């Protein structure tokens, strides 16, 4: 398998000398699987020497076919799963477990159903022992940011899937993380809502200058949102290639972008990488 050296791929001219927000080097992870009680346990190598870096104000997508370990990798970065070997640094600090320097947006909104939208956003702030008035003020501001200023008092079951995911985003942003991790956050939404939220994410990123690591299996989504795309191969998941997305910060909306020949070229390139097949 072709392993591209990360050091050369990531050293974009304007990044030279800048300390990475997230640095992943040689991270490996295996799971023990047992088919039957009598059979000996087999090792399933999910991630094999993963290395890449994410810089300030970047949106970086992890993409790969299902089962390639992209979600596992994201959970390792969050500290929800321990990696077997390798180093993980967030702002130069090694990751040993979950931390509030990272915010996580789940695939399912995973809101606490007994809390209003605002109280859900306040969740992380409560754990930080912030005072009630400060919490409320911060939560209101963030709900405003994600376009839910009027829904603060609503309970999750009163909100649509897209609105719930907005609350999930506000909850992760509330703790002002150095790094925002998003695990296929729009995959459970209908196509229309997904496009709206993708656009919203770009707007919010432009306003907050967050550094985002975004897991997806949707090529268009990755190309539309990312500054760079890390393509993972499957079993064991390794970095196949890191792709620079050339559209810049003021990119047109996805339907327009789809007509860009560079978009089409990159899309078929990634498709080829993921599927291990020549371009159709």
């Amino acid at each position, binding site marked *: 398998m072709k392993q591209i050296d990360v050091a050369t791929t990531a050293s974009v001219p304007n990044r030279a000398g800048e300390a990475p927000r997230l640095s992943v080097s040689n991270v490996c992870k295996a799971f023990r699987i047992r088919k039957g009680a009598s059979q000996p346990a087999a090792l399933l190598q999910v991630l094999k020497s993963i290395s890449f870096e994410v810089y300030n104000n970047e949106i970086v997508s992890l993409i790969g076919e299902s089962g390639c370990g992209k979600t596992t990798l994201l959970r390792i970065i969050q500290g*929800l799963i321990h990696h077997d070997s390798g180093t993980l640094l967030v702002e130069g600090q090694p990751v040993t477990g979950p931390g509030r320097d990272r915010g*996580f947006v*789940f695939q399912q909104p995973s809101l606490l159903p007994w809390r209003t939208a605002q109280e859900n956003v306040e*969740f*992380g702030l409560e754990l930080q022992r912030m005072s009630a008035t400060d919490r409320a003020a911060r939560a209101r501001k963030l709900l405003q940011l994600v376009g839910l200023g009027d829904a603060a008092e609503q309970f999750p079951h*009163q909100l*649509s899937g897209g609105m719930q995911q907005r609350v999930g985003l506000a909850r992760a942003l509330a703790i002002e993380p150095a790094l925002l991790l998003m695990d296929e956050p729009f995959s459970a939404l209908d196509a229309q809502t997904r496009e*709206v939220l993708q656009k919203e994410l770009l707007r919010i990123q432009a306003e907050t200058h967050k550094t985002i690591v975004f897991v997806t299996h949707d090529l268009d989504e990755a190309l539309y949102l990312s500054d760079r795309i890390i393509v993972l191969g499957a079993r064991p998941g390794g970095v196949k290639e890191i792709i620079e997305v050339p559209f810049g910060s003021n990119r047109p909306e996805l339907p327009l972008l789809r007509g860009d020949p560079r978009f089409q070229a990159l899309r078929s390139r990634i498709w080829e990488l993921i599927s291990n097949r020549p371009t159709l």
Partner: protein
Amino acid sequence: MALTTEVDDAARETELEELGGSKAARKPYWLVRAISIVLILALWEVVGRQVSPLFMSYPSAIARAAVQLTASGELWGAFLSSMETLTLGFLLATIAGVLLGLLIGRYRYVDAATDWLVNALYSTPLVAITPLVVLWFGLGFSAKLFIVFILAIFPVLINTASGVRNVPSQLIDVGNAFAASEREIFAKVILPASLPYMMTGIRLGIGRAIIGMVVAEFFTAINGLGALIIKYGNQFETAAMFVPILCLMLMGVVYTAIAIRFEHWVAPWRHTEDE
């Protein structure tokens, strides 16, 4: 513009709910229920009058007996005495059941150490140990309290434990992702998430507590509604015997209604999801 589709969806859902709600309210279910009550009572009155008053009674005779028992203060005294046992025993069972259920549900080791005992005791018809309890505690208040407690604790405990086990792992993940401590996860995620299960356990516990109370009063037979039933049963005053029975029924209905109200109040989201 960004929010249009979502807002539209939300509006449509609310509207649908309201239409459904008012439609249900327009249908005269209450009328059907009222007619059913009147018919059954009338039938009972007619048939009951044909049977010897030793074996069966009928609504108007029971009503007369109720007035007498109330006037003499006998019913009220028995009712208070029963309520005392029931309330205290049930309260203790709820507190102990919730605490033990939380531990058993959260910690596998506690579960492994106790599950066989809990299952065995829950499956045993515990009223069977009443004579033993009387030997231990005598015929007084503490024997009755113990029987109510032991009968009511298991539904509370088992439901609380299963509530804790059924907390969606995604919600626990949220706690973990935000670096919450075990204690914070317990207080902010597990406890509120298992509250509806606890309430179900409490509701089921009420029924068993009332059974325990009556059985205990049958055996100890000093005071309470159970003693009243035994007394008038032995005197073949069947109409008077029905009065404490109806009283028990009323207690069960009122307690259960309160519990259901409380359930909706602590977990309004669950109520809406069920619909």
